């Protein structure tokens, strides 16, 4: 199913939760909505589900108007499935009953599935690896298993749009990695469109076909994970997705002079216009090269963390504190003088849609 949002707005009293959102989710696409808490991403998802009414704008699902300010199609009449942050398993139902529930009541269940509910339940539970847990109650399951049941319940009626509201945030780190693979596998097997809300940029980068970066109720940037990560169009995206350091300096025809030091010049390729206008060069921690010999910008190491495969340093350069990721064999101690230079700038990939200004 393709979903089209045009100029969707939402206000709660005086607070603007969403201001003019335009977005298209194509059939079979995995879209991640990424942003900090309070950026409006959950409101957007709840509008897609039909739990909230937009204050303005329109939403079309497969060309059918589902929400405008006067009337909305309620959630139970939309062809959607949803996975909740809190799992939302009904405590009084067995695993198989949870999965069977939407097969009985969902309005868009294909007749072929309706005829073989029992088999469908088995099939979906197999898909998430819980075929042996069909008769368990929710309180007899671990966190990861609960989330698998929630997934199975959401996909059982074959909805054409699957909504996920931070589904992994209540799981521990190891399980999150495992569930990412699980969700990717489900996306491949079912081919349904997915809108996935998260505040974890690693999750969004790992799974999505496309990432929507949101902040303060507006879309900061849309693009492939690679684009959003490597070619941020705004300062917010650079900080939030790439954890970039904002290096101030002067832009000239030759390139960028960090901290206006004319003896150093960084290449200006593929940098968004905003940064050039504001005299900023966004540098991700791993883009910095830390030189023990002191070449480049002079700075002092003020903190270091050993991370196993690499080292995380904080380097103070003329009062600016920048994060630098260096290979584990680079070993400098706190208080030492080091030099920082730019390691490399990559070019956009074949599918990139970034507007470059070089």
């Amino acid at each position, binding site marked *: 199913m393709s979903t089209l949002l045009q100029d969707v707005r939402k206000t709660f009293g005086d607070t603007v939760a969403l201001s003019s959102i335009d977005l298209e989710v194509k059939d079979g696409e995995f879209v991640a909505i990424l942003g900090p808490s309070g950026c409006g991403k959950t409101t957007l998802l709840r509008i897609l*589900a*039909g*739990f*909230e*009414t937009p204050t303005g704008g329109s939403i079309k699902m497969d060309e059918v108007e589902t929400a405008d*300010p*006067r*009337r*909305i199609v*309620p*959630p*139970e009449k939309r062809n*959607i*499935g*949803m996975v*909740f*942050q*809190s799992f*939302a*398993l*009904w*405590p*009084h139902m067995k695993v198989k009953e949870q999965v069977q*529930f*939407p097969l*009985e*009541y*969902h*309005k868009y269940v294909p007749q072929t599935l309706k005829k073989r509910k029992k088999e469908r339940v088995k099939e979906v539970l197999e898909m998430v690896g819980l075929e042996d847990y069909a008769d368990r*109650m*929710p*309180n*007899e399951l671990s966190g990861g298993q609960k989330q698998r049941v929630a997934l199975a*319940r*959401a996909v059982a*009626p074959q909805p054409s749009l699957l*909504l996920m509201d931070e589904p992994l945030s209540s799981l521990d780190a190891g399980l999150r990695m495992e569930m990412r693979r699980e969700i990717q596998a489900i996306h491949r097997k079912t081919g349904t469109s997915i809108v996935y809300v998260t505040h974890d940029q690693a999750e969004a980068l790992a799974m999505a076909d496309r990432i929507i970066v949101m902040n303060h109720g507006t879309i900061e940037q849309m693009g492939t994970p690679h684009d959003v990560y490597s070619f941020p169009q705004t300062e917010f995206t650079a900080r939030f997705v790439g954890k970039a350091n904002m290096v101030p300096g002067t832009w000239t025809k030759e390139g960028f002079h960090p901290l206006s030091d004319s003896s150093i010049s960084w290449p200006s390729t593929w940098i968004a216009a905003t940064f050039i206008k504001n005299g900023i060069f966004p540098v991700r921690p791993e883009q910095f090269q830390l030189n023990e010999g002191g070449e480049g910008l002079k700075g002092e190491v003020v903190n270091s963390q050993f991370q196993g495969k690499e080292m995380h340093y904080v380097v103070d350069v003329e009062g600016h504190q920048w994060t630098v990721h260096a290979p584990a064999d680079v070993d400098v101690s706190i208080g030492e003088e080091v030099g920082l230079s730019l390691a490399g700038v990559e070019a956009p990939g074949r599918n990139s849609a970034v507007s470059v200004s070089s």
Partner: protein
Amino acid sequence: MDHTARKNQGGPASWFSALSARTLGWRWIIPAVTLIVLIIFFVLPIVRLVWLSFTEDAVPTWQHYREVLSDAGTWMVVQHTFWMVLGSTMMALVLGVFMAWLVTYSDIRAKKMIHVMVMLPFIIPSYIITLSWTQLFRNSSWFSGFLQWLPGTMEAPDLYTLPGMMFMLGLSNYPLVYLFTVAVLRKIPQELVSAARASGSGRGTVFRKITLPLALPGIAGGGLLAFLANLDNFGIPAFLGIPGNITVLSTAIYQEVVGIGPSAFARAAVLSVLLGIIALLGTFLQWVLLRKSRQLETAHEETRPRFSLGLWRSPVETVVWGFLIFISFVPLSSMVSSSLLSAYGVDFSVETITFSNYTYILFENEKTQGAIGNSLLLALWTAGTALIAGTILAYYRVRRPSALTRGAELVTGLPYALPGIVLALAMIFAWMEPVPGWNPGIYGGIGILMIAYVTRFMILQVRGSMTALMQVDVSMEEAAHVSGAKGFTKWRKIMLPLLLPGLISGTMLVFLTSFTELTVSSLLMSAGNGTIGVTIFDFEQAGYTHYSTAFSTVVVVLMLGVIGSLLLAHQIWKKKVVKI
């Protein structure tokens, strides 16, 4: 969340489609109508009562107040009320806080059993408990005999006095203080105490600077709750104060109304306004304190013991259990033995046992049979109506909090915040002639009791349902919607199975309170429409102690039966539906 009542804007042109989508129109019309109905049933009677106290033949006047307040008798009544409430509240506070402190912080054993034992007398209406104590202390009881046998000149205390009323009220209401204080004490994190100790303060300082200030709002709140319950109580002053000739505000109102003097209603209205204002002030103060103690709500409850009684544990346990067993069972057993005597004053022995009182009550007397039927009908009606209406109200209050739903909760709570006797009088004024000049005969039949009970007890169900609803996360409902279930299916398959135990505990409270209600019925009942409470009161006033005790015993057995079967049902439910 349901979409139907969500906010929507649209011009008049969109009205038709708006209605078909069940949006704009119904979102405001239904709540507005509900609020108006609530105000008519819950607030208007109280307004009419206040109005009546200020008017004479519909002309505004201060005359009734001047009359009542210049009467020396009124001040006597106020004084009695003051001392009775003060004494009983102190007693309830001391007993309740001490018990709560022992159960929450000490290493006393069998805490759950102590908890149940403290709460046990709370289920039985206070007038039956009072009746049982009067039987224990009567002249020819084994207890009096025991006291006479002891050296010295000890006599069983006379309960038909001011201290007697204080004692009975304190005993009846200390579980309230206990319950309230337990919750507060448990919420004070142990770490706070440990932190103060680690900062170098000794046990005494910690108690003065940390524990006491944190617990004080809670304890004061519990004390106010007891104060309100003591002020509201009618059974104990009616059973002890009326024969003992000690009149307090609640019994004064009752006597004015049943005495029917020339300006009886107006005088009763004035006294009611006075009593009502005191009660509302107390409720307000309690609400303020409750908000203050909410600061602690983020902390989790702790049940580990915090200090050891050491060598004192066994002696303390003996005293506590001795006290609990004595107050719970001994008076009740004297009541049962009294009910088995053929006449007052006969000694209890195997030869004098007779079941004639029971046969009389259960099979011969139409009044008692009617009372059981009426009370059962009233309790079922009240519980059923409150269950449905109260749960709907609670649903909107919890899921869609707004000024409107908060207002609805406040309005529903008003009749319960007022003393029962005040509400009863307001009910008479409101329903005798709902519209001036038109008497549909609601007053004088069972109809007025049906209205009055629902008005008074609805809030208990609203609160119970709200608690139940708050424990069911919204996402449970949303998951049902996304799965295609709404309305009836959603409630049948998801909501009711999850809510039922919570709802039923509220309904049970409404049922049991209505079943043994005395205060409201004593003013509103008419011939042939007696309730259990009023019938026992009548027997007692007429001196038929063997009937009142027998009837009370029957009622206690009935109540225990209902509670027992409900607990059983709950156990079965728990086995079928495993909670998270």
